[in-house]
């Protein structure tokens, strides 16, 4: 079997590891337009901050490709898939054939048209290793950094530059930060924390126009900056799939096994749509764990095994300046809130199920909540008082504990 993988990040690596569980000899080729050994995209802010050394940004050890017997083509972009010939065409015109193909093309930053943006010389997005390297190159203690976007990427970029300069302003059109993972109460707690560190926010506002070193906002204020980081959102890289006739909606459409509408082509990660079991809807879940799990499932299926990626939900663990937060699921439903000086916790129930949670500050054992959501364990089968007070195995009945902790197969 001849496997080809477009991409070299989590979903691609998951695919290699999935294939090798089943097929130890088939030929695997990895194709990436970036020139690097597989590295972790979420680590670029840590790298910029100096918390992760050059050699630790890599997602797998140096000998990963050799050990897994992978042929790796780096620094070349795939431009076209010829489904009938089962070939991928590269930008230099060469073609690579495949029996099974994985598209793990990821996503890219979305840069909206903004007046005068072409006048800004030091402007960056913040997704790739090269982006972080470019920012590091120009970042100085006296730099004024303007970040457009108060989402996960924008705020991680803020943390990334903070050791060098504390002169950071974040602008967002939304009226609160991190709206994709937090409720308004949570947003306000995290914003206050960031503000105590000196990060400034201008929310509910947008850039009307740029000159080389200033941004004029709709609200009238004028912000001076040296470095502009644009982090307003990401878009899935679906073009190569769409152009060859594979079904694409907002992301590439895949089934439970990560197969696309073409029987020999699979897709995984940020470029796909996943079934969010908390809502029953297809959505883009651009999360590293989801990318790996889909990639691994795709690999197993491509190699002739059987595996569903299953039970996908939105979920995030992230921290800013020592304040941790873990969130999962969706937030529509009946809520239980616990708020003290050290923690904010919100649990959301609907249709007799835990559908989502937000934990800020105190996040210990959050995964127990995640498992209840992913496994759709009915709230009626656990001790609700215990569930609400804190994540604990005690909330489950004795038989689940016997099975999970005692290694006893209760079913028999």
């Amino acid at each position, binding site marked *: 079997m001849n496997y080809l993988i477009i991409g070299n990040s989590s979903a691609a690596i998951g695919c290699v590891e999935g294939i090798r569980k089943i097929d130890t000899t088939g030929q695997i080729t990895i194709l990436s337009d970036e020139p690097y050994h597989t590295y*972790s995209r979420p680590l670029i802010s840590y790298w910029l901050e100096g918390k992760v050394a050059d050699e630790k940004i890599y997602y797998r050890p140096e000998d990963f490709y050799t050990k897994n017997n992978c042929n790796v083509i780096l620094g070349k972009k795939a431009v076209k898939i010829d489904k009938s010939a089962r070939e991928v065409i590269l930008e230099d015109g060469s073609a690579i054939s495949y029996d099974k193909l994985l598209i793990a093309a990821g996503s890219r930053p979305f840069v909206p048209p903004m007046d005068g943006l072409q006048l800004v010389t030091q402007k960056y997005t913040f997704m790739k290793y090269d982006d972080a390297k470019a920012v590091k190159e120009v970042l100085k203690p006296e730099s004024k950094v303007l970040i457009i976007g108060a989402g996960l990427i924008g705020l991680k970029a803020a943390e990334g530059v903070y050791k060098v300069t504390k002169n950071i302003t974040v602008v967002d059109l939304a009226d609160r930060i991190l709206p994709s993972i937090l409720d308004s109460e949570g947003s306000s707690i995290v914003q206050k924390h960031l503000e105590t560190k000196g990060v400034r926010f201008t929310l509910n506002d947008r850039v009307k126009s740029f000159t080389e070193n200033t941004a004029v906002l709709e609200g009238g204020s004028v912000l001076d900056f040296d470095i502009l980081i644009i982090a307003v959102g990401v878009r899935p890289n679906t073009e190569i799939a769409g152009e060859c006739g594979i079904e694409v909606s907002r992301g590439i459409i895949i089934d439970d096994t990560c197969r696309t509408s073409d029987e020999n082509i699979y897709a995984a990660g940020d470029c796909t749509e996943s079934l969010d079991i908390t809502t029953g809807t297809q959505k883009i879940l651009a999360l590293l764990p989801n990318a790996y*799990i889909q990639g691994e499932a795709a690999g197993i299926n491509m190699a002739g095994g059987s595996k569903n990626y299953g039970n996908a939900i939105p979920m995030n663990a*992230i921290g800013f300046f020592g304040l941790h937060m873990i969130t999962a699921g969706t937030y529509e439903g009946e809520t239980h809130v616990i708020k003290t000086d050290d923690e904010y916790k919100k649990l959301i129930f609907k249709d007799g199920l835990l559908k989502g949670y937000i934990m800020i500050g105190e996040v210990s*054992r*959050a*995964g127990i909540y995640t498992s209840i959501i992913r496994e759709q364990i009915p709230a009626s089968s656990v001790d609700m008082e215990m569930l609400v007070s804190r994540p604990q195995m*005690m909330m489950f009945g004795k038989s689940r504990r016997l099975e999970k902790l005692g290694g006893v197969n209760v079913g028999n």
Partner: protein
Amino acid sequence: MKRVYVNEDWCLGCHLCEYYCSFANSGKSDMVKAFNGDKKTTPRIVIEEGDDINFAVQCRHCEEPLCAKGCIAGALTVTNGIVTIDSSRCVGCYTCVLSCPYGCIVTDHEKVVKKCDLCASKSGEPACVKGCPNAAIVFEERG
């Protein structure tokens, strides 16, 4: 593979396993030294206590370890069935805390997370099992 299993009916809730775990992971040769001073080592095993039942919880070394699959830094890996953490790679993002269905990835004042490695680098049974006075945790091969 051998794993640590819990017999909750026998657990006294004495917390000795937590102490033995801390000691085993402290790098100290003397138990008194391990618990002296400010830098106490956090146990990788947690006792849950109820009205009439207690039990220990630690890493189950899942066959499908969500913690390792989701690790953004490649710090969590599986070696001979044992899920281990390379602390030098951990960035403390807590994605594993988000993922672990048993709440067995432990955090403390340090940046990196901690977890049970079945005392793989030491000889014999895991320290918690050796130290349990009532055989409420055992190290066995089960189905």
